[in-house]
């Protein structure tokens, strides 16, 4: 994997990521307030099949109560993504300052395959489990 030096725009993006991560972190405990406003899954209503993000709202609601395992069982990809996003956002500015380099992820086939596999396997899981 190639590495490149952190530029000014990377620092700004990292700062923005931190801000958004903190905002998401602040929104999770309020899940019981905003979650009921979301509509039921239209994809499921039309096709009868769960969409890849089915169970995400309930997972966040459960996560707000601190039940990580149940949240993970409802939608593993969304919960993993959410945790990775918040953790990454909180550490991005520190990484930029301490390490000063960023991995160049462009054109890496294993990342493409990994993303597609994660999305598809999560969809199959959610579908079969009947979340």
């Amino acid at each position: 994997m190639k590495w490149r030096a952190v530029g000014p725009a990377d620092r700004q993006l990292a700062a923005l990521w931190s801000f958004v991560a903190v905002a998401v972190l602040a929104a999770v405990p309020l899940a019981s307030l905003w979650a009921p406003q979301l509509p039921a899954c239209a994809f499921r209503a039309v096709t009868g099949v769960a969409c890849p993000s089915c169970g995400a709202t309930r997972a966040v609601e459960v996560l707000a109560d601190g039940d990580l395992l149940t949240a993970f069982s409802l939608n593993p990809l969304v919960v993993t993504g959410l945790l990775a996003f918040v953790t990454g956002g909180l550490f991005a500015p520190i990484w930029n300052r301490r390490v000063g380099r960023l991995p160049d992820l462009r054109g890496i086939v294993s990342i493409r395959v990994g993303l597609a596999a994660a999305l598809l396997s999560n969809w199959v899981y959610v579908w079969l489990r009947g979340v």
Partner: protein
Amino acid sequence: MNDQSLPQLPFEDPAQPAVAGLIATVKLFVTDPTTAFRRMSLTTEIFRPLIYGVLLAWVGEAVAYLFGLIFQVSIFGFLSQIGGMEEAIPAAFLGMGLGIFALIIAPVFIVIGIFIYSLIVHLFLMMVGGDQSGFGATFRVLCYSNTSQLAQVVPIAGGIIAFVWSLILGIIGLTEAHRTTTGKAVAAVLLPIVACCVCMAIFVMLAIAFGISADSWN
């Protein structure tokens, strides 16, 4: 700059007055989005595209709110002629207040929305092998795609027009900024809607279509 032979976008040019630069950039994205995205910088500070995106999205929301308000006032006026609406007046004012409060804090949610949407689109772009210029390029493209929010000035259908226009701008922008194929850009923009965020996309479309104050008189 994406294309070194072209001048930079007026809004990204520090020598240009901010308002004149903003208007010139809006005109460019409306009339010739391909050239506009070619002129977009991939290296300068990200806050200019962000300010542009937030500003236009906010104007769009404000216009949608205004249309919603006009519509609700008309309905309320009609119903009050029938009578028995007196007890609904305090709730109506409360709803209006909440709508205005939502408009005031909207820029924060717009920033969060642009960032998370950019991240999702970029992951799909990586998945289809179209990422040539990094996350920053995707973020800039989706900030400038908010030019589409100007379509909110069209009553009733403005939200839907803005949504479709933003997808088109996103596809053009990703093609230019990442120097990738149109097919990969289409996949990156449409796959999150089709496969991943169906529910959220429909909810956002409905929210835009009916304005942010749809339930403010309830």
